[in-house]
Structures are given as structure tokens and as C-alpha cells.
């Protein structure tokens, strides 16, 4: 069951990822990105990282993608014009060649990595909010606190870049 779900959502994630690049219209690309984010959340869930999965949906699939769409709609960005002079040979040759390249790469990666016992779904139990919170506030407290400086910079940046004309 877990493996089937994994394969299903991994396939969806990859398909959405490809679609994201292929689509001409920004809204369609953004929606594909939602698909990628959603499938990733399911994959996290399968691996036992419940909190990360929920946070992924809230932050990425929800908040960030809404802002993406908001900006695209506000700018009223249309589809890209079709690039003329695209050779058909490129598609005919390129796609099989890319498949071969990716196949070779994945074969090499598989050869290179050690043979572990394999991922056991559900074996990991450190993904509850408690575990994540504990790691953040004990072991990784410093990076967590430095992240607040990062957010401060983001706010400052918004002020600097969005202010009215300098006079």
C-alpha cells in the first residue's frame, strides 16, 4: 500500500514538475507547482514526517502559491508567444536522448549509492510536532534564531525596494 502510494505520488510530482516547465501560461505553471508541492507533502507523510507535511501544504501549496497567483493575476501576465522556428528534429531526437541520459544517470546513482536495506515506510517516528519543536529549540536553536535575522532582512528589503521615489 505504502509503495503504491509512493509510486503514485512520486509520478504525480514528476509529471507536475515537467508540466510546470512545459506549460506556456504562468497560471498553468503555478498550478503545476501546487501539484508538485501537494505530492511532496504526501511523500513526507508517507515517510512519517507529519508536521513537515502539514507545514508544506500550509506554507507552500497554500500561502506562497496564493501570492504567486495573486501577483500573476495582478500583472495580468499572459502566455508566452510560441517561439517560431522550433525544429521538429529537436523534439524527435531530444526526448529519447533525454530519456536515455536520465536512465543512465539513475543507473549510475543507484550503482554509486550503498545498498541499504531500503526505505521502510513508517519506520521513522520523529516527525511529530513535538519532535520537530524539540529539535528546533534545543539542538538547532542557533540557526533558528539566525533565521529571524533573515526575516528581518526580508522586511527591510521590502521597505527599501517598495518605497516611493528617493527625493
Amino acid at each position, binding site marked *: 500500500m505504502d509503495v503504491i502510494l509512493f509510486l503514485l505520488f512520486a509520478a504525480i510530482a514528476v509529471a507536475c514538475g515537467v508540466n510546470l516547465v512545459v506549460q506556456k501560461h504562468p*497560471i498553468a505553471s503555478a498550478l503545476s507547482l501546487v501539484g508538485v508541492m501537494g505530492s511532496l507533502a504526501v511523500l513526507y507523510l508517507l515517510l512519517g514526517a*507529519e508536521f513537515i507535511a*502539514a507545514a508544506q501544504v500550509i506554507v507552500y501549496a*497554500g*500561502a506562497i502559491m496564493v*501570492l504567486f*497567483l495573486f501577483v500573476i493575476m495582478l500583472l495580468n501576465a499572459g502566455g508566452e508567444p510560441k517561439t517560431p522556428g522550433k525544429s521538429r528534429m529537436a523534439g524527435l531526437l531530444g526526448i529519447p536522448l533525454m530519456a536515455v541520459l536520465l536512465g543512465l544517470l539513475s543507473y549510475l546513482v543507484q550503482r554509486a549509492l550503498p545498498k541499504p536495506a531500503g526505505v521502510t515506510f513508517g519506520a521513522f517516528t520523529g516527525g511529530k*510536532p513535538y519532535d520537530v519543536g524539540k529539535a528546533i529549540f534545543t539542538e538547532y536553536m542557533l540557526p533558528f534564531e539566525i533565521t529571524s535575522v533573515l526575516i528581518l532582512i526580508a522586511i527591510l528589503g521590502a521597505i527599501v525596494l517598495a518605497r516611493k521615489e528617493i527625493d
Partner: protein
Amino acid sequence: MQAIYQSPLFLPLVMTVVIIGVFPLLAGYIVLVERKVLADFQVRLGPMRVGPHGLLQPIADALKLLLKEDIIPTNADKFIFWMAPVISTFTALTAFAVLPFTEQLRVADVNVGLLVVSAMSSVGILGIILGGWASNSHYPLLGGLRSAAQLVSYEVALGLALVSGVMSAGTLSMVGIVKTQLARGVWGAFDNFGFMLVPFVIYIIAATAETNRAPFDLPEAESELVAGFHTEYSGFRWALYFLAEYANIFVVSSVAVTLFLGGWLRPFPSVKWLEIPLNYGVPVLLFAGSGVASFPLAKRLKSHIHRVGLIGMAMLLVLLGLLLLVPAVNAAVAGFFWFFVKVSSLVYLMIWFRGTFPRFRYDQLMNIGWKWLIPIGMGCILVNALLGLAGA
């Protein structure tokens, strides 16, 4: 046969089917209640034609919507136009999966339950803004943009209020939250020496905005934007948006009840001797009392069929009330009863808001969200932490 009942998936599956089957009907009747209540506020009658006192109005409306012509504007993005209401409805109904109606009566108890609800509400926004965009029309686009800005802003305040609630509960599991309230012997809203009422109020305000309800209904302000993001929708697709809106109202009310009002717990859960009067007295009085009160009303009715119908209903109510006196039945139903009473009160509150407050202007809306609710929500977290320390 035995095996099916005992399977851990049995109750969740049944609950899922029941929720999906029953909720549209329930939503229809919430609409009817809303129309009736608003009519009462405005000293008029509301729907009266279909069925006695308009009681069959929701069914007639549903039939009408199903049979209506499905119009798709020219140059609309068809696929997204089709998908948008589905996203809204899907996310709204998915959130039901983690609502605990009682300790047993639920689909799932996940340890990030509250986050699942937030996740679904944040993805649900996509349905609204995509619907607004895909219609390829000005009013819906403006409505969609407005709603995106509004929902993103108020989501922050909502989240901060939830954080305050979660801090005293110490868990994100919806069942766990209610159990903590049982253990602490007090509803969440009155915890921390009553301070939790502040985040509760913030939550109610932000939740009203999250569900696009008046006085925060700018995304569908009739007088400015015709009907906002769903102007171009008709028929069944429009019904889906409607269903999603009422499902969201139900969900935010349920979350408020779970987090702040003790979920399925009766009032004063820690006071032992109140169990009999509250768990038996209140529901029995409510059902049997309203049944008995109906008898004198029935005499005044002129139509014979109406009279028979009302008497039949009254007898049924009395019977239900009496049934609740059986301890086994009572134990099984009391939790559900309290949950439903609380949720209904909150839904009524939202209808009341709509009947009372004028709509905010856009800048007022943003001011309330960013300059009041969010700072106060942050302050609440701080004060809660300090009070929690003091309490511990």
C-alpha cells in the same frame, strides 16, 4: 460480517460517507435558517411558499440548481473554470476528516489535526482566486484579488489565535485538545484565568473574515462587484461554491468549539454533580419541551394536513426526548448533542453578524487585520506563555 465491523477502517469510512451524504442537506438547511433569521431581524417572513413555512425550500433550491443551464463564459479558461469550485469544495470537505464530533465519532485523529484544517483552508483560497481569474471577466477578477489579499491577511491572525489555543492545550491533535480541556476541567476559552477569551474573540473575527462572511464579505460585495468571484458561475458549479462556503462556516465553528469551547464536553466538565442535570436535563427539556409546546400551536392551524403534520412532528420530538432518558442512549449521544449545540450557536452568531454589521471598507478591513488583530494575537501568545508559567 463480524470482521467488517471490527476493522479500524469501518467507522471512518461510514463517517466519511455520512458526512458527504448529509452535509449538503445540512448546508441547505443552514441557508434556510439564515434566511429565516435574517427575515426575522428585518421583520418579514422569509421563504414561505415551498412546504409549510418554507421548510422544503432548500430541496427545491437544490433541484433548481442541478437542473439549471451550465454557462461557461467565452474565452474562459475551461479547465480551471471547472476545477476551481471543485478545489474549494474538496478542501472544505476534507477538513471534516479531522473534526471530532465526539471522542469516537470522527474520521481520523491525526497528531497534526489542527494543521490539517489550516492547510485545507489555505489551499481552499486557491479555488476562489482561480475561479475569479478563470471567468475572464472583470468583477470576478477583482473579487478574486480582494479575497486573496483578505484571506492571506486574516489567515495570519487566525493562526496566531490558534497558536494561543494550542499553547494551553499542548497538542495539535483535535481529540487531544478536547481531552486536555477535560483534564484541566475548564473550556479553552476560560483557561489561563479567563485570558483565553481574547484569542477566542480574535479567532471568531478572523474566522468570519476567512469564510468571506459579512461584515467581511468584500470578495462578493453585491453592491460593488455584483457577486464577486462567482459572478459568472451558475447551476451546479455555483452550488459547489455555496456548499464550500457553508462547509467552511461549519468547519471554522467546529474548530472554535474544539479549541475554545470544549468540543463534545458539557459545560462545567469538572463539576461531577452537574452531569445528570446537564446531560439529561438540557437535551430532554429541549426536545420534549419543544414537542409539548407545539401542541397548542397545532390547534391554531387551519389546514387539516398541516395540523396532523405538526402534531406528528411534536410527538416525534417528545419521543426523542424521552429516548434520551435511557442511560445507554444518553451516554452515546450527549457528546454529539453538546458539540452540535455549540456549533449551531456559533453558526447562529455568524448569521447574527450578517444581520447586524454594515460591510467594512477595504482599508478598514486591512487596518483591522494588520493593525489590530495580528498585534493583539501576538501579544496574546506572550501573555499566555507568561500566564502558563505562572500557572505551572
